[in-house]
């Protein structure tokens, strides 16, 4: 086939594709909502949810992962443009990390050293470490499916950001249930669960986001 013929074909094909940024919420939010509804209908929300949402320390359980979720997903969308290089908003991520670190330091200061280990340990490490990745898995799949329509030239980072975004959103859902309010606990284990999904996204990114 001559290149001119190919151009004729391409010019004839005017079926529009939707943008990644438009599609992502349409695909991601319903999947997250269904996964979250199933999870919470089984395991329930915390009894004092309304108070927890507004108290400074416990609200961080929603605000911090929520911020990571937004930074991750919007970053992945930015990277879905081939010339996109600015997906990783390091400064904003560092602000979130700094707030989390400050909460840990502050808690260590007001807790006698012999209470530190118990604070980190809490009593629900395993449910936390299993639930967050499980909740985030389907939304991550939905996000990656949409990102495949894009044209990222940084697939590993885009995958990682999709993982971080899905993990952040899943953590917000999990926090609706979880009553562990010690920053030593939730910064450690929420953080670890988030990292696991981020690593998963990074590891599948190059294969899934190939084009």
């Amino acid at each position, binding site marked *: *086939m001559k*290149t001119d013929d190919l*151009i004729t074909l391409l010019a004839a094909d005017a079926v529009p594709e939707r943008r990644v940024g438009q599609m992502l919420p349409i695909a991601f939010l319903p999947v997250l909502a269904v996964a979250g509804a199933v999870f919470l209908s089984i395991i329930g929300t915390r009894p004092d949810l309304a108070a927890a949402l507004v108290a400074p320390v416990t609200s961080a359980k929603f605000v911090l992962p929520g911020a990571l979720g937004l930074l991750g997903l919007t970053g992945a969308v930015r990277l879905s443009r*081939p*010339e996109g290089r600015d997906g990783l908003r390091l400064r904003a991520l560092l602000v979130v990390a700094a707030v989390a670190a400050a909460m840990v330091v502050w808690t260590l200061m007001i807790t006698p050293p012999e209470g530190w280990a118990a604070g980190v340990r809490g009593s629900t490490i395993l449910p936390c470490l299993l639930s967050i990745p499980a909740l985030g898995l389907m939304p991550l799949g939905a996000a990656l499916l949409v990102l495949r*329509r894009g044209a990222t*030239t940084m697939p590993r980072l885009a995958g990682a950001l999709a993982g971080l975004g899905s993990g952040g959103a899943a953590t917000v859902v999990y926090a609706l249930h979880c009553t562990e309010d010690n920053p030593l606990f939730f910064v450690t284990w929420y953080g670890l669960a988030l990292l696991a999904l981020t690593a998963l996204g990074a590891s599948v990114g190059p294969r899934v986001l190939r*084009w």
Partner: protein
Amino acid sequence: MTDQETEWAALLRAANAGDGRAYARFLHAITPVLRGIVRAKGRALRGDPTEDIVQEVLLAIHLKRHTWRDDCPVRPWLFAITRHKVVDAFRARGAQVQLPIEDFADILAAVPDEDPTERGDALKMIGHLEPRAAEIVRAIGIDGADFAETGRRMAMTEGAVRVALHRAMKRLAELRERHME
């Protein structure tokens, strides 16, 4: 250079709004530039795959044209796609290629204006499409038929032909990819 940017952006903007003729002009305008880039980099390759690679890049640009935001410059977008696909195509052919973005400026300044023999191999790939899709691709791409005419001949609605062509373009890109591996 800025004129080129403005012209290409205007054409692609019109194209993304559904203007097929503007789109054809856009593709015709960028093809010699792509060819120049590929040829400048492809001397080390056996055979002369230049036109095949140019066609791969054109297909990729086509299938990813919705990733261009029309408030952004078009050339960085175009070169990012080109670089990605050229590196990919060369790697698939067993050659490494370095394609620093600064090179594009030089190549742009020295685009050859002669037209080569254009012996790409998309036609081979058309043979791998399912028969009806292949027929549509041949009718519109080679025989120059329009959608209404093709639809009548194949007892399909015009809309169905349009969708079938779109799917065929995606399929062609996939087939090329697989063919490479």
